[in-house]
């Protein structure tokens, strides 16, 4: 799981009508941790920065759906 994604295991009742999601997630983007940005941080190359949406690796918090097969935050095992 991405460092920008946190999770918890909510209570699931025996008679919950929807199949319970055993683990739920939420996003904690890097702006929560950076504080006032210091000068001289590492930068992306301009073309990469334009694509990513930020010049600063320290501020890049990519997102993939936790429901997408590739991310598999909610695996259906056991």
């Amino acid at each position, binding site marked *: 799981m991405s460092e920008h994604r946190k999770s918890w295991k909510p209570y699931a009742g025996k008679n919950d009508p929807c199949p319970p999601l055993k683990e739920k997630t939420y*996003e904690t*983007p*890097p*702006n929560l941790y*950076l*504080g*006032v*940005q*210091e*000068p001289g941080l590492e930068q992306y190359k301009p073309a990469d920065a*334009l*694509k*990513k*949406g*930020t010049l600063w690796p320290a*501020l*890049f*918090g*990519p*997102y993939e*759906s*936790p*429901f997408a097969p590739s991310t598999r935050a909610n695996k259906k095992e056991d």
Partner: protein
Amino acid sequence: MFVYEKKLLYPVKVSSCNPKLAKYLIEQYGGADGELAAALRYMNQRYTIPDKVIGLLTDIAMEEFSHLEMIATMVFKLTKDATPDQIRDAGLEPHYVNHGSALYYENAGGIPFNASYIAGKGDPIADLYEDIAAEEKARATYQYIIDLSDDPDLNDGLKFLREREIVHGQRFREAVEMLKENYSERKVF
């Protein structure tokens, strides 16, 4: 004064005609945490905010307008040439009856844009905390749309816009620190 540059902030590509996705995306066009609300919120608050952060609000307001333009382009491409059958399948009949194929400032539930989505409290800390919350809410909305979307090209643009919300949230947090005049580490050059 505005100077208009006739290109999008980030290229908008859409893989397929998909009015259903447009129905979701309209939330970012005319919804409470959408780009129109964001632009108007910052462009209005800037008049009464302390002068050292006026520039930040102006800059971000301008960028939000460029995001609004991207969202409009996405919605337009997703619905352009859609047939009445496709409109019906997407649940967009009420919009079509009212607006035809025109875009409109409304949320995903069809509620028209409302100025009460925007706060202008005149208290610098209250306003900036509102702005931080607005950015995080817009980020969450982008995540929910990405979760629902199966269009990789569209998602590419949405992921860019979501990252910009993160950067704006960072800058508003820094603006609060500037107004607190309490840098943990004050650098002098």
